[in-house]
């Protein structure tokens, strides 16, 4: 084995790597926030009176969960412009990530909602709350808390999945690694460093989510 790993040579591409990392962070933040909203809407649709919304939401979830993300991405980026819906690479990437995450979260949040004790809903009705108020104030918060760790895991999976948007030339972390190795031919080193950065991101994401969770879901006595 006459090969020596050469990480030092990557230093000169530090900026490329960092700007790619930053793009991945931005993609993740935006698609996580929008994806959670979409997941909540999807879960709400699943218990809506209107059967079109109910079935539509179910079909959406099944369609997304049973096709690869890269195909969804290509369909959005290459397919939609063909019928007149144009967007930039970044927009297409975010749209694909949000649609993908939204489907999984719809299913996760729905499962949490299904476990709502019936009595809570009846108590809320008896107090005069409307269906919408009941969903937003009574059903959703504890349901979201119940499935929070699954939500976090899914958001992390989607962050990792965002590597694929490099394929439509969004200049994120994987794109940066591709770029660097095409310049200096140190493919193994470039990808290894990128992989480590992803690992770090995944770790940080879990940390931040847990921090948010323990604050948001604290049941310590409140002073008022």
């Amino acid at each position, binding site marked *: 084995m006459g090969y020596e790993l050469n990480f030092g040579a990557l230093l000169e591409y530090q900026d490329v790597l960092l700007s790619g990392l930053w793009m991945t962070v931005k993609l993740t933040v935006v698609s996580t926030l929008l994806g959670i909203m979409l997941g909540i809407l999807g879960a709400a649709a699943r218990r809506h009176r209107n059967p079109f919304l109910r079935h539509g939401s179910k079909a959406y979830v099944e369609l997304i969960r049973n096709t*690869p993300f890269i195909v969804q991405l*290509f369909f959005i980026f290459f*397919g939609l412009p063909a*019928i007149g819906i144009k967007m930039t690479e970044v927009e297409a990437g975010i749209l694909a990530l949000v649609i993908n995450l939204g489907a999984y979260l719809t299913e996760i949040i729905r499962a949490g909602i299904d476990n709502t004790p019936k009595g809570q809903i009846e108590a809320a009705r008896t107090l005069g709350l409307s269906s919408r108020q009941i969903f937003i104030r009574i059903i959703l918060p504890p349901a979201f808390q119940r499935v929070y760790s699954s939500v976090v895991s899914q958001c992390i999976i989607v962050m990792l999945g*965002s590597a694929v948007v490099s394929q439509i030339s969004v200049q994120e972390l994987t794109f940066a690694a591709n770029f660097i190795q095409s310049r200096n031919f140190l493919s193994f080193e470039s*990808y290894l460093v990128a992989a480590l950065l992803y690992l770090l991101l995944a770790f940080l994401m879990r940390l931040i989510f847990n921090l948010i969770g323990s604050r948001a879901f604290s049941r310590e006595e409140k002073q008022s």
Partner: protein
Amino acid sequence: MSQFTDWDILRNLLLAARWTILLSLLAFAGGSIVGLLLTFMRISRRKPLIWITRIYIEIFQGTPLLMQLFIAFFGLGLLGIDVSAWTAAALALTLFSSAFLSDIWRGCVESLPKGQWEASRCLGLNYLQTMRYVILPQALRIAIPPTVGFSVQIVKGTALASIIGFVELTKAGTMLNNATFEPFKVFAMVALIYFLLCYPLSRASQYLEEKLNVAGKRA
């Protein structure tokens, strides 16, 4: 303008889908073997073995599958092993699957009530006997639905092999798109074929899960 009829596109995609299926089967088989090994290491009660598997799983669950593919593709080359896209993809998907499968299976083993272990010890069974006759048969039953469920992830994961140049369903899709300039139609067809592969697996997993729950309640 294109000399491809819809039927031509579909036929070519279906031909390529054979490679998707083959790669999936291979990754599933390989992932199961490695995964089983990891599962045994993980439940072995030997600290170093447990740590190794934990780190292994962290790495494969904490990095993009695409990175794993790249590293397998380029890393093996460095070792002087000449790798085709096919080998690299099969290897990366095997390792990727093994991490997830072993994590699923460990969960199944650990979900069995402690009483099972204690009762077995009272009967005089040793660790291996308890595993062989008490724990594994039960764990196997509850492991089937999530394992089938994960096979969907494998099928979808094979799509990334297209990026390192392996011609399976997704790669065939991009090639046909370049030839026909009909991305909407081509990628819709690609998605449909994946859906037809994955949806039955998803449903089977759900069905098995429900059946297991019903059986569990009756017991």
